[in-house]
């Protein structure tokens, strides 16, 4: 299988869906000739022209609203918010308008739009350019939320997102853009609501999202050296959420560690822990531990930022805490 980066995988999904369906188009700040702040839309303007790859003013409410209205009118917009951190100026158009329209209208609207946006810390971009806000989106009925961790999933989930008839928030991790992996050339879909078991194991279940999947896989290697066998699972989508795969795993391993990069307090990891504490309680043989960022904004300076981002050690320590 050909090897591509996570970024290339996203770019390819966009290109192929735009080739397939003339109703798919792109909007966002600097997504045109510039190719996007991180280069995700490179080459699309050249291929599809100004009509289908639209540079917008720096007005995120207007962007999301334009996508919502165009989707209600039957197109399939994919809009980009340059950093997820900017959603605060435009959340209304997403959570009160796009997400709720169908329900409020008694099922009589379809809003097939995708909002792509990068999350995550690690490049010294500080408090307003480094957050992970998936918990907010996952709390909004009417939205679907995808959060790919691999190039393969990035392409397949994005194609699914574009073909979905609902508003989908597609959360990329900016530190994964350079990650390479196997990605088929042809279009394919990865289903929503289906977690992926990345490593099988018997002693503990680690559920991890986005970049933390890779941190957790590394941790699993370390644990393996200490004779502990960790199963590592990526939910891939938070809405819909694949409870079953995780519960099944916990039934086998009897232990759960949840890992994400967002701050722990009221983070999505709590939802995962709570589901397992309800549905697989009897299979657990010890506490559920969450590994996540501390309750602080994201700091700028590298030693602080590194202390902020959960690391391999943190995951190993968490597992050892319940497997001591």
């Amino acid at each position: 299988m050909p090897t591509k980066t996570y970024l290339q995988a996203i770019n390819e999904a966009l290109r192929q869906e735009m080739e397939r369906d003339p109703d798919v188009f792109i909007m966002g700040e600097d997504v045109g000739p510039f190719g996007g702040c991180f280069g995700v839309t490179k080459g699309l303007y050249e291929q599809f022209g100004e009509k289908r790859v639209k540079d917008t003013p720096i007005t995120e409410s207007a962007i999301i609203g334009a996508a919502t209205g165009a989707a209600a009118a039957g197109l399939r917009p994919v809009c980009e918010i340059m950093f997820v951190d900017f959603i605060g100026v435009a959340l209304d158009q997403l959570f009160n308008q796009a997400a709720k329209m169908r329900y409020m209208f008694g099922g009589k609207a379809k809003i097939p739009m995708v909002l792509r946006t990068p999350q995550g810390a690690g490049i010294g971009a500080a408090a307003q350019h480094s957050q992970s806000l998936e918990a907010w989106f996952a709390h909004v009925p009417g939205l679907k939320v995808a959060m790919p961790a691999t190039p393969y999933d990035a392409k397949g989930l994005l194609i699914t997102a574009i073909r979905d008839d609902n508003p989908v928030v597609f959360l990329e991790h900016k530190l994964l853009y350079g990650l390479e992996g196997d990605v088929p050339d042809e279009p394919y879909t990865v289903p929503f609501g289906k977690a992926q078991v990345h490593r099988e194991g018997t002693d503990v279940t680690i559920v991890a999202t986005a970049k933390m999947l890779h941190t957790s896989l590394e941790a699993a290697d370390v644990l393996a050296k200490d004779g502990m066998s960790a199963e590592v699972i990526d939910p891939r989508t938070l809405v819909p959420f694949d409870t079953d795969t995780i519960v099944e795993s916990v039934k086998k391993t009897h232990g759960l560690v949840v890992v994400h990069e967002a701050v722990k307090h009221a983070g999505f990891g709590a939802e995962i822990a709570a589901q397992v504490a309800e549905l697989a309680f009897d299979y657990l043989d010890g506490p559920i531990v969450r590994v996540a960022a501390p309750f602080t904004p994201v700091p700028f300076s590298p030693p602080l930022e590194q202390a902020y981002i959960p690391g391999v050690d943190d995951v190993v320590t968490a597992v050892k805490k319940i497997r001591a």
Partner: protein
Amino acid sequence: MSLTEDKLIQMYTTMVRIREFETKVEEFFAAGKIPGFVHLYIGEEAVATGTCAVLTDKDYITSTHRGHGHLIAKGGDLKRMMAELFGKKTGYCKGKGGSMHIADVDLGILGANGIVGGGGPIANGAALAAQYRGTDQVAVCFFGDGASNQGTTQEAMNLASAWKLPVVFVNENNGYGISCPTCKSMAVADIADRAAAYDMPGVVVDGNDVVAVYEAVAEAVDRARRGDGPSLIECKTYRWRGHFEGDACTYRDEAEVQSWMAKDPIKRLREKLLEQGILTEDKDREIRDAIARELEAAVAFAEESPLPAPEEVLEDVYA
């Protein structure tokens, strides 16, 4: 742009239909049959009517919390509207939306909106779809004087103008945002003056003169259909009732209210049409009787329709 007699009668009928609908809503709200909030359009009928008279079923509108008039003017079905207000399963939204969320996407009505300023960005999107497909559809964004200050509205005007989207921003300046007089929420005298900030035409019209509204909107719609971009039309008008039903309206003085009631847009058109012989007292009675029957039927439909079953709460979240 001279209006045919038919069109004038049609507009007159629409205005009366709105007035009578709202009067019924007032009555049933007071009787406790309509839950939630209702914001009545009484006194402002000329704006929705004059505007929507320019549009076809294929054109789009985004409405506001004060949306009944817009919906009726755009062709909304009174039965399904009334049923929705009553929270019934047969309502436009199956009882899920209520007054602030009635929509009829098939008629291009992209919904009333509970968020002040929520409609502008969405109207742009519908207009963008028209532009993208090369149709001649336009989108009208209704918004209040209060909403004109909201960032979303201002962003929407900017984008519409930068992209030359076929949008008409119809401002309903009724002098207040809830209790706050327009003059306290902005320093500028005419909201139409804001059009210049986006390099689009901006005009002020007498919002109680349905013909004036029609003409201004017709020009803006033509412009939009030609691909020349958006316009802003400020319609000066007044709401007769409180902000919502139940508002004691202590912030307005009676003389002001009376002076505006004297400018009743319906009475005004009626007198003009009678004078010009376009309307007769008989014809007027006929129109009013027909509307009364229509409303009776709508109320009966609403009253007799079933409430949604509790388990329906879970339906219609996702497509």
